[in-house]
């Protein structure tokens, strides 16, 4: 009984409160919509700034990636060579010879590129060769000549082999062949 008495009284009081006009600010709608427009404009500006930042960063990132690739595949001397003209390439032996590990060198040429030799005709036109390294000689490099019939970037694979024909090191020489270079 007591519970329902308090409940009834409370509900009567608030029924009167609901029936009264407590008023609504005439500026409420205007202020709320203005705030929402401002929020939306800020969000759009932030999104635009983010995309701008992304496009700048992605450009910089691409540049960085290309540079990284270029550095790690840097040719020995970085050759730009002409098409249809023989080019001499030097492969440095360096520490490998000093360690006495290198007994042979295998050179594989890509398509469109072949060896060139006036003295060793059997080499001319070949795309792959295996050379013995003379450890008695003081020379620290191996020279060879190549000739390209096609333009483009041509990677030359040089493998250093020990006495057991195990590959102890390898290098890629990037030579860019260009018409009229």
């Amino acid at each position: 009984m007591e519970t329902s008495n308090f409940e009834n009284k409370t509900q009567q009081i608030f029924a009167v409160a609901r029936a009264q006009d407590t008023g609504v600010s005439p500026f409420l709608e205007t202020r709320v919509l203005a705030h929402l427009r401002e929020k939306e404009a800020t969000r759009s500006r932030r999104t635009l700034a983010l995309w701008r930042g992304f496009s700048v960063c992605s450009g910089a990132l691409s540049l960085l990636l290309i540079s990284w690739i270029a550095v790690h595949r840097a040719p020995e001397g970085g050759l730009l060579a002409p098409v249809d003209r023989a080019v001499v390439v030097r492969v440095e032996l360096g520490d490998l010879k000093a360690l006495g590990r290198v007994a042979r060198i295998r050179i594989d040429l890509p398509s469109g590129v072949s060896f060139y030799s006036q003295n060793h005709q059997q080499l001319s036109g070949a795309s792959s060769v295996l050379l013995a390294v003379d450890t008695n000689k003081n020379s620290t490099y191996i020279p060879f000549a190549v000739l390209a019939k096609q333009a483009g970037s041509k990677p030359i694979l040089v493998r250093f082999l020990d006495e057991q024909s195990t590959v102890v090191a390898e290098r890629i020489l990037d030579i860019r062949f260009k018409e009229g270079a």
Partner: protein
Amino acid sequence: MSSKDVLDLESQVRRAQKGDPQALSQLLRLTQVRMSRFCLYLCHDPQLAQDIAQDSYVRALGDLRKLKDPTKFVSWLFKIAKNLFLDHVKSPRNARNEALEDSQSEARKGDGFQQSSSDAEFSLHLKDTLKRLEPEDRLLLLLIDLEERTYFEAAEILGISEANVRFRLHHIRKEFINKYED
């Protein structure tokens, strides 16, 4: 709220979620009387009530796409208002200023709204009584007895169990009547 109003509200919420700017205005117009009244009796300071109502709408309408069930818009709006109110109450700066606000609150009528003298007297007495309740008790009483939310809805808004709502309501009503008739 009539069932027609409820359907209207639901359709406005769906339209607003799809980006219809007219629907945002409609949502405001359909709910602002209730929201303003609720905030006024909750805060007993007209200026604070307007600020809380405004901030609640900005948050609710700004994040409307997060509302999965459009039928729960009003509950969601009240929940935001509740959180803003409790944050205000619990802020140390606001706790210190409360005594000063009490004496000045009637001087700050907000945007120039005037009630009749008998309505004003009733309203003032009701606000004074509510002010003497703990903020959480005031919230529960207003949700159930002013806004006529169900126990389930009030429990959802307050983040407590329905059983807790029923239990506390009895004691809050008793305290309220004793203070009101004091």
